[in-house]
């Protein structure tokens, strides 16, 4: 049975952002159905559907909703549209082409959680999307889908768009909440979790745009349709993004569980590499989730997965479970960027390390200093002054920051450590080769450039030093 696109069904339809077009195609019938159910039934339905959050962590949305205290008076719903993870753009495509699908999802989620006010936290750079979404919201208000006594059910919901101002960390749920409260986007220590005490110290649900956009389809098409899509623990449709030097970069919808190779080479997806180049590396789930080796490497013997060996890893299934076998942090946003064979991994490493060094919020020492340190090391290696020691140092730093070793408040340093560590471990041979190819005097030149004081002291412990084979060598 060919897969039918649901999340992206209005992409390419003329005037798809208007309410009339959306309603003509059965829009808001899911919300009408939801409003006839009891809120708890809806939560139960979403739990059964095992709708896992599409924002990155993959936490089941129904479970998140069920953590809300039973005796609450006020509940807030925050919609996380602060899409800043490179190279993700599926939320942008969704808002650009089908803002009403998101709004309907907000209405359903709002009703299920008995929300009174919903805030859409839209990233500051999304100007066009802001106007599209605001107009759609105006239309929805005028048609009675928001406001008081929605569709005669007696349920009230207000929805506002809140624009961010350029901070990656505001995509973290407690960072988003802090930012919404008008503070710096510093993540909070958990617990208390937002479901208990979040926005304005009230129970709060934070959901991603794509998670909410799934809800109308879950209601109109039913649980059976939903459970028929995807793999064992990952159900439903997913928007995959592919970018980089492929023939057809873009956003494609598929049931969860396509392989990375399909995403790059499939005719329905990326359509192969430009100029017939080979893939050196691919970041399959946004940068934070780590890197896979491409088909520049030999294929692994059938049926084996060993991330420690230099094998082609494109057969990784992009769902919530299989990615972990390839030493990735998770599925993330399922946005792949392809690194072609002629790119230098040192440049890639600098770019990745720079992103996190700039976007770390600076609260936790390990993250603030660790990301900057990794960026400095990566820059040094790119300048041709790397040492073999640096590779081990990068791995060591990356293993000592983040929530997993218990060093930080939020998951940003995990996301920073993972791509650096996997890149160093999986492409170690290339880095070693680059270091071996360095000019012997490069380290000195680099030191002279970045640190004059060090260069003024060329004698270590009274002896002249030379730079040989990646280490400082002192003749006896």
């Amino acid at each position, binding site marked *: 049975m060919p897969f039918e696109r649901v999340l992206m069904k209005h992409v390419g339809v003329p005037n798809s952002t208007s309410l009339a077009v959306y309603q003509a195609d059965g829009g808001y019938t899911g919300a009408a159905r939801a409003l006839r159910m009891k809120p708890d039934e809806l939560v139960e339905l979403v739990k059964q559907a095992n709708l896992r959050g599409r924002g990155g962590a993959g936490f089941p949305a129904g479970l998140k909703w069920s953590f809300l205290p039973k005796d609450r008076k006020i509940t807030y719903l925050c919609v996380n549209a602060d899409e800043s993870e490179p190279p993700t*753009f599926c939320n*942008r495509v969704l808002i650009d082409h089908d803002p009403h699908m998101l709004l309907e999802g907000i209405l359903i989620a709002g009703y299920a959680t008995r929300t009174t006010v919903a805030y859409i936290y839209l*990233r500051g750079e999304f*100007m066009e999307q802001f106007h599209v979404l605001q107009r759609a919201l105006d239309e929805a208000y005028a048609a009675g889908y928001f406001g008081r006594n929605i569709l005669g059910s007696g349920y009230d919901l207000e929805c*506002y768009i809140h624009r961010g*101002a*350029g901070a990656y960390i505001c995509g973290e749920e407690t960072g988003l909440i802090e930012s919404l409260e*008008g503070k710096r986007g510093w993540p909070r220590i958990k617990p208390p979790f937002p479901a208990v005490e979040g926005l304005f110290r009230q129970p709060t649900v934070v959901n991603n745009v794509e998670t909410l956009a799934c809800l109308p389809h879950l209601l109109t098409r039913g649980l059976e349709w939903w459970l028929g899509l995807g793999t064992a623990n990952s159900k439903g449709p997913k928007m995959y993004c592919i970018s*980089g030097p492929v023939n057809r970069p873009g956003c494609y919808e598929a049931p969860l569980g396509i392989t990375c190779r399909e995403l790059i080479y499939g005719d329905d997806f990326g359509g192969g590499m430009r100029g017939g180049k080979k893939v050196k590396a691919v970041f399959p789930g946004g940068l934070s989730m780590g890197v896979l080796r491409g088909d520049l490497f030999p294929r692994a013997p059938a049926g084996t997965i060993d991330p420690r060996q230099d094998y082609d890893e494109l057969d990784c299934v992009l769902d919530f479970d299989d990615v972990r076998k390839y030493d990735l942090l998770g599925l993330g946003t399922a946005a792949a960027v392809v690194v072609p064979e002629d790119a230098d991994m040192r440049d890639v490493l600098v*770019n990745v390390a720079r992103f996190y060094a700039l976007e770390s919020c600076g609260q936790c020492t390990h993250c603030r200093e660790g990301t900057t340190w990794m960026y400095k090391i990566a820059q040094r290696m790119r300048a041709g002054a790397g040492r073999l020691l640096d590779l081990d140092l990068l791995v060591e730093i990356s293993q000592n920051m983040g929530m997993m070793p218990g060093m930080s408040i939020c998951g940003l340093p995990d996301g920073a450590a993972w791509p650096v560590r996997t890149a160093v471990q999986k492409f170690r041979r290339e880095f070693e080769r680059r270091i071996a190819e360095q000019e012997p005097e490069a380290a000195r030149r680099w030191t002279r450039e970045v640190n004059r004081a060090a260069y003024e002291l060329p004698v270590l412990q009274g002896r002249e030093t030379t730079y040989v084979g990646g280490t400082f060598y002192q003749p006896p």
Partner: protein
Amino acid sequence: MSWRTIDRRTVAEEDLGPGLSTAAEDKIRAFLPRYPTKRAALLPALHIAQDAVGYVSLRAMRQIAELLELPPAAVMDVVSFYTHFWTHPKGRKTIVLCRSLTCELMGGGAVLAALEARLGIREHQTTPDGEYSLMTEECLAACEHAPCMLINEKLHKCVRVEDLDRILAEPANDKLDVARSNLFDAPTSDRRAP
């Protein structure tokens, strides 16, 4: 008045920069009913200030602090966290170039170099005629159109070095062609050049 200390480093009145107009203040007040606390309207207020003044001036920060019943330091604290806000005058149009991994792989570095050469400025600088400011940012979330460039509101996609002349020569290169909502956030037209 012996208990009063004189802060000799207080910013002089004329260095505070332009302030908010009454219309802009009213716009900020219109946001207050949306949130249970006044402080939550800070980000919208700063957006309005940046649209009205061109950047977030010290005087605007003080006015916002008064409107939202916050210490001025709290406003500055927030302003300094977000990269979108400028605390010094910027050009009429801000060019934001993406330099994330996809854009870099697709030739974003060459575009940045060409742009710097053409405008004669480096990052975070403004051209002498006050027309353009240049900055780079991490991922504009349009990676399928890499490399991309944002001029004020308008996103230019698949920018190549040879396109730059055409894009920069176009007078409306920062205007969106979508229908606007006339709700609160619509940018004001009284944007001043520094």
